[in-house]
């Protein structure tokens, strides 16, 4: 079978709902199976990347720690919605991992390059 170009789109902030975390688990699994995968953090999904998360008080596992381990799994095709960053006045210094910015007018063409989009 030809490898499928697969994109995981992360639109939700972390913690409020498990979907944000469950998307990361899909990405890690794809990495284990050596399937090529990109991730796009869009809208509120950009909050997932934020440094300094301390989730002990809400008794959940630290979300950003999982993301910071992505390079170890060779998950490096990480993209971010530059508009969403700017709206939230976030810079790359705030993030736990390196992400490549995409401008608003690039997002649609970027998504269309993939065979499968899994959206969380």
């Amino acid at each position: 079978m030809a490898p499928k170009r697969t994109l995981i789109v992360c639109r939700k902030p972390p913690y409020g709902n498990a979907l944000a975390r469950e998307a990361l688990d899909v990405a890690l699994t794809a990495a284990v199976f050596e399937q090529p995968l990109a991730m796009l953090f869009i809208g509120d999904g950009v909050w997932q990347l934020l440094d300094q998360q301390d989730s002990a008080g809400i008794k959940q596992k630290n979300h950003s720690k999982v993301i910071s381990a992505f390079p170890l799994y060779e998950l490096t095709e990480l993209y971010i919605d530059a508009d969403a960053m700017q709206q939230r006045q976030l810079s790359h210094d705030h993030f736990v991992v390196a992400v490549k910015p995409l401008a608003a007018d690039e997002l649609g063409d970027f998504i269309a390059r993939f065979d499968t989009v899994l959206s969380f």
Partner: protein
Amino acid sequence: MQFSLLILGSPYSSQSVGTAHRFAEATLESGHSLYRIFFYHDGVYCGNQLSCPPQDEPNIPAQWSALAAQHDIDLVVCIASALKRGVIDSDEAERYEQSAANLAANFSISGLGQLIDANIHSDRVITFGP
């Protein structure tokens, strides 16, 4: 004051179940009492005994059971919500000819009347929903 809680969220999906649990503990620590915790909508899954979380995540049904046992709190899952979602006690398992029951300890299954009753007997009903 006397509190009751209405819990609508799905455990392991919505943070609101955890927030409700912290709120419940804080009411007790502040000297208030909890008359009833009513689980409705996806909240009824909080009463699913078969939950097997990984070691680094809380066992949500067991947490509620323990809180109820320690502080004598009435935990009620709504019967209409629970039956269709497959959270049943042994009576219902028998009635519906199911192979097993799965309602966690210290929970009971009852009707929406228990929510109305909780409202009558509590100073506050706080909704944690989904």
